């Protein structure tokens, strides 16, 4: 048995070395660039055929009557699903490559010792670009606070990071157009900046759990690495595999629900409940959104369909922000480092920001 094991071990090692050598020989940077350019061109070509494709599937293959609720729903589904998935793949890849230029360690270095207002703006912006797993919100919080990043600035980061993300923006762009996507980006950032700044003013530092404040972190540095372009593109690929692999099911489910609403719910049905006239609908949307935990991928298609039935944009956006920025699981995790009063203030400040955005949109649009 023993010798056998050794032989197989040696073989695997050989194989790895061979593979590594082969990769280094064959994958030249110019080659990769060519592949990328070609893929993007191919992407554009396919993307432009989506409308005829949806028509073909709905009316030619499935032979559904034009203008019937069933036909409308099915066409909606076969147009929006590939469109959103394609947009998602492209953007997530791009953002994955971009994010390889940022690390939480760098971000912390940039933010440590920054003055409040400038720090809040920087933190919110970096919140979009810095890659971090949502479950490391607590370690990140500790890391920031102990490194001397002001509490308010840390909050700007933690609010912006989940709320303004590439998946939300892609879906808003794909389903509701670029104007709504930009509005969402700007107001999301503003909420993070202003809420964080407000936190700074409230002087709540002693409402962080004691063990965090007493903690002296040994500043052992994480090895800084220089990445090659090949590795950055690999980051993009990994991001697509990770994010698209995780959210596609929500996208498809969301669009399916959206498609049913689109075809079967009567025009103007939502006007009385979620329309501009119903002033109470914005706070109701925020409150309902808190215990709901979904990602942007599942919620935007539903929102898209609701809008078509007379729901007001502000109300709907407030609902979406509340669902993804104020989630119960996140609050429970944050409770480990924040005392109840600070958690309460967090919900109140971010919630008011979302309320404000909801009303603002309902008034101006």
């Amino acid at each position, binding site marked *: 048995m023993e010798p056998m094991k050794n032989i197989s*071990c040696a073989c*695997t090692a050989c194989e*790895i070395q061979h593979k*590594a050598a082969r990769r280094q020989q064959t994958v030249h940077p110019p080659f990769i660039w060519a592949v990328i350019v070609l893929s993007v061109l191919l992407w554009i070509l396919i993307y432009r055929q989506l409308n005829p494709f949806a028509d073909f599937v709905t009316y030619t293959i499935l032979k559904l009557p034009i203008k019937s609720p069933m036909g409308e729903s099915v066409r909606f589904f076969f147009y929006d699903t590939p469109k959103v998935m394609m947009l998602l793949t492209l953007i997530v890849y791009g953002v994955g490559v971009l994010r390889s230029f940022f*690390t*939480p*360690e760098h971000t*912390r270095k940039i933010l440590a010792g920054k003055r409040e207002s400038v720090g809040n703006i920087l933190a919110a912006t970096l919140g979009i670009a810095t*890659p*971090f*797993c*949502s*479950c*490391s919100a*607590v*370690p*990140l919080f*500790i*890391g*920031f606070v*102990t490194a001397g990043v002001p509490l308010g600035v840390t909050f700007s980061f933690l609010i912006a990071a989940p709320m303004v993300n590439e998946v939300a923006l892609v879906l808003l762009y794909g389903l509701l157009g670029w104007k709504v996507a930009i509005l969402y980006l700007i107001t999301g950032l503003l909420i993070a900046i202003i809420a964080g700044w407000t936190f700074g003013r409230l002087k709540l530092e002693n409402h962080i759990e004691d*063990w*965090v404040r007493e*903690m002296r*972190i*040994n*500043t*052992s*540095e*994480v*090895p800084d690495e220089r990445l090659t372009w090949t590795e950055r593109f690999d980051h993009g690929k990994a991001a697509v595999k990770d994010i698209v692999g995780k959210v596609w099911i929500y996208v498809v489910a969301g669009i399916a629900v959206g498609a049913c609403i689109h075809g079967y719910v009567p025009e103007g049905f939502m006007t009385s409940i979620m329309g501009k006239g119903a002033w109470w609908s914005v706070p109701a949307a925020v409150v309902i959104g808190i215990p709901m935990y979904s990602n942007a991928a599942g919620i935007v298609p539903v929102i898209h369909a609701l809008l078509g039935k007379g729901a007001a944009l502000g109300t709907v956006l407030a609902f979406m922000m509340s669902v993804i920025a104020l989630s119960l699981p996140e609050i429970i*995790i944050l409770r*480990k*480092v924040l005392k109840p009063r600070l958690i309460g203030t967090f919900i109140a400040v971010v919630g008011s920001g979302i309320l404000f955005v909801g009303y603002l949109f309902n008034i101006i649009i």
Partner: protein
Amino acid sequence: MINIKVLGPGCSKCIETEKIVKNALKEAGVDASVEKVSDFQEIAKHGVFSTPAVVIDGEIKCAGKVPGRKVALDWLK
């Protein structure tokens, strides 16, 4: 014996990291103790604030991402 710690609260990425480290150990034929650290206080004590992270004999090898198989093998050499 080498002491390896995988730091992370326990999401899918942390579990994947642990699997990669264990597989790398088997592949390299190295004997080591692998410990999973999921307590936030413990994680912070290591000076790590983005998870998953891997600490080998007190030295942070990577933080904030799942290491590749090849990278993990390199650490064990």
